[in-house]
């Protein structure tokens, strides 16, 4: 910070108005960059520099046993395209997202509809319902692995009551049940997120429009699609964007429940990259995968930000 900025204002009052303006303008310009600089520096340090390093490594052939730093061209990218396990991991991620996102959205909307009208103890209900959202996802996954335990968990116990016998369902091991199990945990944690945002959006819908529609004799569905949905759409789009991106990087809950298993059945792209990079030490290959993820996501995010009004 140059000393001139701390000079008393009285001095400038003597100079002409135009001079004050230009002086203030240059001062502001310097000031605004001084404020931005440290943050941009940190972001570049942790964002751009590793990105460049990632690109370099992805063209080499570093593995656990081999520190081969010679350039291999597109070797890792060819290997990646031909890696069926990677495509499957990508597919699993898409499946989780495609199932969990609509369920969370519809359940969250239904819950928001339930709580939008006056209901005794509404604030207490809402305060309690948000709790899953703020739990660490890894703890949420651990909690559900307690719930799903075949012998000491309450879920099999409840099913046992319903069928009138002993239920010994292996939720996190049986290939047919791992997806439902993970999805239940995921939906449990994030439906309240949708609920909160949509409740806020619904409260902001113009009441007089709803009254006018009801006077005109419009039914509930018609009112919903013609008036409510367009009104809450901006918020809904943001909720879908945030959750969609979160689901694409799904890691913690799956890690706690199945570690991607049985086999690689529930392996998401994040788990795949983790296993390749930190358990098999396929460094250059993982760099190529990480780069692919970054490029893919950046395109999606940039396109989405153009369409969605994320804060003014």
């Amino acid at each position, binding site marked *: 910070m140059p000393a001139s900025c701390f000079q008393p204002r009285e001095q400038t009052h003597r100079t002409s108005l135009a001079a004050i303006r230009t002086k203030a303008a240059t001062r502001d310009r310097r000031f605004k960059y001084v404020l931005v600089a440290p943050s941009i520096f940190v972001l570049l340090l942790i964002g751009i520099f590793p990105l460049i390093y990632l690109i370099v490594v992805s063209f080499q052939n570093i593995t656990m046993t081999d520190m081969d730093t010679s350039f291999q061209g597109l070797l890792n990218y060819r290997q990646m395209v031909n890696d069926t396990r990677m495509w499957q991991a990508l597919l699993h991620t898409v499946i989780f997202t495609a199932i969990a996102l609509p369920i969370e959205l519809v359940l969250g909307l239904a819950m928001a509809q339930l709580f939008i009208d006056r209901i005794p103890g509404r604030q207490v209900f809402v305060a309690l319902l948000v709790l899953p959202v703020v739990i660490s996802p890894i703890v949420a996954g651990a909690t559900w692995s307690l719930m799903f335990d075949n012998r000491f968990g309450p879920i099999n116990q409840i099913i046992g009551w319903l069928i009138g016998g002993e239920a010994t369902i292996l939720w996190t091991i049986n290939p047919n049940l791992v997806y439902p199990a993970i999805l239940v945990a995921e939906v*449990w944690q994030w439906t309240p997120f949708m609920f909160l945002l949509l409740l806020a959006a619904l409260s902001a819908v113009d009441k007089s429009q709803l009254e006018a529609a009801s006077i005109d004799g419009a039914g509930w569905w018609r009112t919903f699609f013609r008036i409510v949905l367009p009104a809450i759409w901006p918020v809904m789009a943001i909720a879908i964007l945030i959750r969609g991106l979160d689901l694409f990087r799904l890691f913690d809950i799956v890690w706690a429940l199945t570690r991607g298993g049985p086999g690689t059945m529930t392996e998401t792209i994040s788990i795949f990259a983790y296993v390749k990079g930190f358990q098999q030490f396929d460094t250059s290959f993982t760099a190529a995968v990480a780069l692919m993820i970054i490029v893919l996501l950046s395109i999606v995010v940039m396109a989405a930000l153009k369409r969605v009004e994320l804060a003014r």
Partner: protein
Amino acid sequence: MNLRQRRRLKLILRLAAAIAITAFFLFPIYWLFMISFKTPEEIFAFPPKWWPGQIQFDNYEVLFKDGDAKTVGNSLVVASVSTVLAMFLGTLCAYSLARFRTGGENLANWIISQRMVPPIAVVFPIFLLYVWLKLVDTYVGLILLYTAFNLPYVIWMMRGYINDIPKALEESALVDGCTRWQVLWKVVFPMCRAGLFATAIFTFVFAWNDFIFALVLTRTEVSTYTVQVTHYFGGQSNFWAKISAMSVLGTLPIFIVVGFMQRYLVRGISLGAVKG
């Protein structure tokens, strides 16, 4: 049935639905907390018992005796220090973005897009870099990464809160002879105190709850509580008493903190898009 009775019935049905839904969402949390108070015999009782015979804290005592509870301390250190750093740097940057439109929408969009990239893709090159710099399993390394990861969130949120402050106040302070820095300290920060506080809380929660960065970048010295929880998962049997007690140690502070932040919750988790 007349109209009044019908309305009453509808309200009762709605209330019943509300209670059922809330019970569904709270039950797993109850189960987690309840297990942490059970004795080992009660945890491995069949059929499972839905409440502990008595509230006892042996499971917690073990964590403190074995030194595992230190990981909660590690979480506290890295989350607090990185929150303070990110708040300081981020708020200054946000002020510039909000008031001078520095870099226009492109810079703002680039900053927020930095947050949306999957952590695994970010942490992999960071890990390679840290190995080289010998920053793996150090406080500095973890704090630096959390600071950088939370910066976009802080900048984005604080930009919103600063935009909410009327510009006229700052202008009159400038006319009265305040420097730009004085305006920041004496007008802007006090005016958005609530926003600063709320943003700091959420920044803290994000760092506190993180698992993947800590999993990759810590070994033994600075592992956080989330990493410690996963250490209790075994191939054959899980150390349930420890899993639940450690999870509660990590979750209870968050519940308490967020309980005070209800008003800001919606804005905080929607990246500022919904003012709530």
